[in-house]
């Protein structure tokens, strides 16, 4: 019904959110959380879930108050024009840097885990060309495609968990004591940094309106919580926190270690297939969101003329951002995580508080 109007449902937005959180989760949350919280790292997503729920209530107020308007309009409505525009610029820079990071990681995953002798450009250019093509189809097509990928992703994830969970060594994920409270909070920083929902509010004018934002939002949050807890739990439970905290592709090596019935292995190839699918979704959605921000900033009628140039700039930035994967990892851990927390949590909360003071929201 809504699709005919060229809009996507809140349910589809939440599916996009799940997919876009899943893809960085399988890459690094087991490593990042176990580095701080060690055997208790699997509890870190619970803290992130609490933060997510708070954000959900704040965003719900924006969603209800600013019907058919996007987050750029919300920012400009709540702040003076110059500050508002500056905040949008900050968002454009942030999402572009994040997009660049994900593009580079998309290629790095392949050359680290599967094809070390292949030029990384083959993977990066291929995915960017497909993104450039697909993005012209609009958010409705992207959302429908995401629904299909969500089903595939879920089936593969559940199958992997079905094989992996029975082999978890409980001594690797215990003991849990009050000593773990601070490490778990420290570990949760990276999971909090994956609360990507505010980015999708930059195309919220293309969402259909209904009263189920909170319901779908909490369901998506629970889904993400379960996925993240399981990813960390099986990774650390199978390999131990020492190995996981040192591996650049932590969940991947846990999957690589599966040996079903002592004979069948090679399950990592199944995981790789979900990587490609979910990475594609994250790249296309971020690009779409970034272009919407640019459109709002310059009051443009359409962003399509900017697609190619924007993607070309992101490609160039992919090579400027880091010389090698070590720099990329440092950049991600020391900058991107905190940048995300600022733009995804701090700024929306500040705007909400300004709105509250001005009695706008």
């Amino acid at each position, binding site marked *: 019904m809504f699709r005919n109007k060229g809009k996507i449902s809140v349910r589809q937005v939440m599916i996009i959110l799940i997919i876009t959180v899943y893809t960085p989760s399988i890459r690094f949350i087991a490593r990042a959380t176990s580095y701080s919280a060690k055997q208790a790292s699997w509890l870190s997503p619970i803290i992130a879930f609490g933060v997510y729920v708070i954000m959900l209530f704040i965003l719900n107020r924006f969603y209800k108050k600013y019907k058919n308007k996007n987050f750029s309009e919300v920012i400009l409505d709540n702040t003076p024009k110059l500050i508002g525009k500056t905040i949008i610029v900050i968002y454009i820079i942030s999402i572009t840097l994040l997009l660049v990071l994900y593009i580079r990681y998309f290629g790095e995953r392949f050359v*680290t*885990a*599967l*094809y*070390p*002798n*292949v*030029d990384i450009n*083959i993977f990066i250019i291929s995915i960017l*060309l497909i993104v450039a*093509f697909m993005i012209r189809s609009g958010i409705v097509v992207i959302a429908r495609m995401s629904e299909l990928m969500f089903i595939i992703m879920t089936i593969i994830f559940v199958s992997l968990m079905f094989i992996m969970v029975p082999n978890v060594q409980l*001594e690797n994920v*215990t*003991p849990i*004591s*009050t*000593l773990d409270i601070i490490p778990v909070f420290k570990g949760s920083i990276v999971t909090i940094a994956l609360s990507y929902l505010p980015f999708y509010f930059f195309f919220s004018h293309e969402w259909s309106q209904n009263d189920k934002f909170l319901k779908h939002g909490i369901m998506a949050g629970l889904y993400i919580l379960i996925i993240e807890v399981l990813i960390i739990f099986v990774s650390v439970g199978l*390999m*131990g926190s*020492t*190995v996981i905290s040192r591996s650049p592709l932590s969940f991947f*090596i846990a999957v*690589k*270690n599966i*040996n079903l019935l002592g004979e069948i*292995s090679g399950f990592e190839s199944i995981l790789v297939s979900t990587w490609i699918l979910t990475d594609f979704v994250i790249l296309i959605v971020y690009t779409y969101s970034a272009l919407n921000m640019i459109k709002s900033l310059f009051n443009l009628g359409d962003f399509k003329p900017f697609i190619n140039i924007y993607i070309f700039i992101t490609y160039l930035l992919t090579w400027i951002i880091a010389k090698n994967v070590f720099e990329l990892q440092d950049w991600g851990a020391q900058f991107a995580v905190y940048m995300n927390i600022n733009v995804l949590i701090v700024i929306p909360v500040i705007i909400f508080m300004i709105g509250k003071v001005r009695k706008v929201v």
Partner: protein
Amino acid sequence: MIRTITLTLFVFILYVATGLETLVGGRMDISDAFYIATVGLDKEDDEIQMTIVTKQYSPKEETSQIAKQDKYFVSVGRDVFEAARNFNSFMDKETFWGHVSYILVSENLAQKDIDSALDFFVRDHEHKLTSNVLVIKDARAEEAIKLVTDSGEDITTKLKVLSKGVGALSISSELPLIDAFNKINNKYCSCYIPTLKIVEDQKDEPEEETKEASNTENEKTDEKTKRLVLEGYVFFDQDDAKLLCSIEGGTARGFNFIINKIKSGVIVVKDPDGEYVNLEIIDSKTEIIPKIEDDKITVKLKTKMNSNISEIHGEVDIFKADIIEGLVNQQNDIIKAEMQSVIGLVKEYNSDLFDLSSVINHKYPKKWDKIKDNWREVFKDIKFEIEVESKINRTYSIKKPALSREKEKK
């Protein structure tokens, strides 16, 4: 449409501009690869010698599960990776490392460099982390590989058979690469790796009559036959991963009792007449119970074990409560002695051989947090107590001994 055509042309031109080189390198035809199944590592002066055993398949043979005879190759390099790469300088096929099942490290190499010997196998993307690690005791890995391969046997299959059979005596076990790596990384406990050794079978001197008859045969074959035996463990220091000590026989089984790796085994006790009674271990479970009182740690190793009577040599009807109790006591003493010998080593080397640190961490996480930095100092004052509670549950098809005759009533 025009855009699609333009883009396709653009991609095509890009592809042609590369000189039509293969874009995705690293592809390997199944018939052009040597599938490495077992790797042996030795120290050769300051270099690493790598011996690889390959199993060559052609597509047709793979489907019909017929493998050609194994081949082994030897290469030397400054480190493991260089030695691995040097194979490409003389082998007529590419090497594929994704099928490695066993990594054999000579004791000489393991002495100081077990961490760097295994690093390549953990780090490299092609390797499985489930490959088993073994240390070759008192011999070179190359020697062990040659011994089996030259006799026409497949060493990988041989090692698999030995690994499966080791449970019958429980004097060794399997250790996947990832577990070995985890233990080497753990600064609070010692790493153990199962050992493989070459045993020379001592032939009895034949009697005069048979001596002449077998002379011709003996000329063709060696006097002594050698075979591989999977038995015991070596331990590595928790601080610097240097080789600490090795165990075998009863001590190795005692270690397996402590770390709960007992699958089966034989315990020999004596009946009241001094004749042997063989007991088959059915199961065993050891609980490591630490207790901290006034900052002093005592550890109780509480073992519960069940066995069945599998062989009786004497004539006495042993199925009486008091005799069974006597056998159980002997059984308890044997297990206790085997476990005690491990505790002796623990004390001698002041090293946490069976991951007691993890047990204390799980039971007293807060106390552990205080003592962990000083663990080795604390460890040497720990008192150990062993408690064995075993049962002899049953025998099998026949109850009474073969020589147990009914006494005639007068």
